[in-house]
């Protein structure tokens, strides 16, 4: 029964997931942990992994294989393999909701759309032009509007007349917001406008990769109710936010790690993961 760890070294946080696979059964998550990322990916990775190991009540030596993903994936010395966060996200999202065909991942700077088939990446697109379509956009606006980030999603749900934001630049969008504010537009309507424009940009990426009728939404911004509704209304699709979605990449990495591990040491064929 091999234990495999997946570690997602993101720019903000580092997350670790440990899975166990029994023969002829789905791999199951036995531990999760996270730690603040810093200059030293190695340190952050071992911190995250430690808390995951504690959560799973096992020792590092028990791990058969370690797969890393995310921005700092090359910085982890004790890894067996590194995989990009896009490949991991697809695999992880598929595990969390097996019917997933399209994945949307909105991070602080990067927004990614991934078309997947049984957890395999078929096509993907990132916002390579400008960061206006990223989470940073919301953070800035929230700061300017003096609204705590965690309330943004809720507030925008109460919008009555959403105000469109058209600027291509995350920073210049603020001067549009200033315009709205000075015209006396309510904070709710502005926030909803921001969510709408974000949804539109995400929609463009999703259409590039070919959007199915449902989208699995992961990443930090997915926590905001407002953008979820905006996506549903703008794109006319069902948007699912799996719980524990912030661990999706780490999970995917662990599953792919397990896959490689079983391929290398041809142990008894594992369950649905293979």
């Amino acid at each position, binding site marked *: 029964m091999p234990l495999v760890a997946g570690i997602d070294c993101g720019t903000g946080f580092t997350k670790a997931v440990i899975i166990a696979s029994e023969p002829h059964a789905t791999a199951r998550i036995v531990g999760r942990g996270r730690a603040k990322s810093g200059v030293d990916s190695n340190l952050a990775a071992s911190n995250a992994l430690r808390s995951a190991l504690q959560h799973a009540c096992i020792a590092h030596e028990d791990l058969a294989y370690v797969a890393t993903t995310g921005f*700092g994936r090359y910085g982890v010395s004790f890894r067996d393999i590194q995989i990009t966060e896009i490949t991991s996200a697809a695999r992880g999202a598929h595990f969390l909701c097996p019917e997933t065909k399209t994945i949307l991942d909105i991070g602080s*700077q990067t927004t990614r759309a991934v078309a997947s088939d049984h957890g395999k990446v078929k096509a993907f697109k990132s916002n390579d032009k400008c*960061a206006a379509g990223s989470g*940073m956009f919301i953070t800035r606006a929230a700061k300017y509007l*003096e609204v705590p980030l965690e309330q943004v999603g809720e507030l925008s749900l109460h919008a009555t007349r959403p105000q469109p934001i058209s600027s*291509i*630049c*995350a*920073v210049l969008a603020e001067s549009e917001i*200033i315009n709205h504010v000075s015209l006396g537009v309510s904070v709710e309507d502005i926030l909803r406008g921001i969510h709408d424009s974000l949804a539109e940009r995400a929609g463009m990426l999703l259409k590039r990769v070919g959007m199915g009728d449902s989208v699995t939404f992961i990443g930090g911004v997915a926590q905001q109710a407002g953008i979820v509704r905006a996506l549903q209304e703008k794109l006319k699709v069902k948007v699912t936010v799996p719980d524990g979605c912030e661990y999706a990449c780490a999970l995917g990495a662990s599953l792919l790690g397990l896959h490689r591990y079983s391929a290398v040491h041809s142990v008894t064929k594992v369950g649905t993961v293979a």
Partner: protein
Amino acid sequence: MRITAGVDVGSTQTKAVLLRENGDMKIIARALVDTGANVQKAADRAFRACCSDAGIDPREVGYVVGTGYGRYNISFGHSQMTEISCHAKGARFLCPGTRTVIDMGGQDAKAISVGENGEVLDFVMNDKCAAGTGRFLANAAEVMGISLDEIGPLSLQATRPVKIATVCTVFVESDILSYVAQGKKAEDILGGVHLAIAKRTLSLARRVNIEAVVTMTGGVARNTGMVKALETVLGSSIQVGADAHFMGAVGAALFAMEKLGQSFESTVWEGAHAASRRD
């Protein structure tokens, strides 16, 4: 004796000054508040702060000119001017002899070529994207986890500044993080960041004639590292007035003084004399 006010409602901060004309011209009060979500309120707060600071009744202020992006939202303002005109006016007044103004604000970078009488001869501003503006620095500081006031001095200690390709205020994060991951020193990264903006700003400024004296205005002028970087790339010295941050408001107050009916020549010739004294 006449008293006027200039209120500069910027994207992040609102600045106000009171100007008194009594034989000479004197700034008798300054105030600085965060603009925040309510522009009218911010302008009002800044203005009242000035008055109480100077110990005068707001009604004694004969004329108020608003400037900056929120200028049309100043309920008590008598008229508006763009910050371009105001920065030119203010710089020429506070730093006599100024021929070129470089202003780095929150989301606008501008270069202004100023005439003998503080009039705008020519000006350029950053294009549709906020690349290379003051916000770029704020963001870099945030990513590095260093306070905005520290990054300037720190950048001065750079020995081998890194190369920053993007000037996108948001994407610069991934560049910085890559360098952090490569184990580059904070000062070298910041040095690179400051150089990148200096180059961007000057390539903008070169669209107008950059003639000495070059005066830097706006909030970023307080960042010694930025001034140094600009001087290095420009290859000549840049002067930073005491009230660089308030330059827009000062200019507005000066226009207010003119509007108040004080004869135009005096300021004109004052400027001219000041200039001739300098040269």
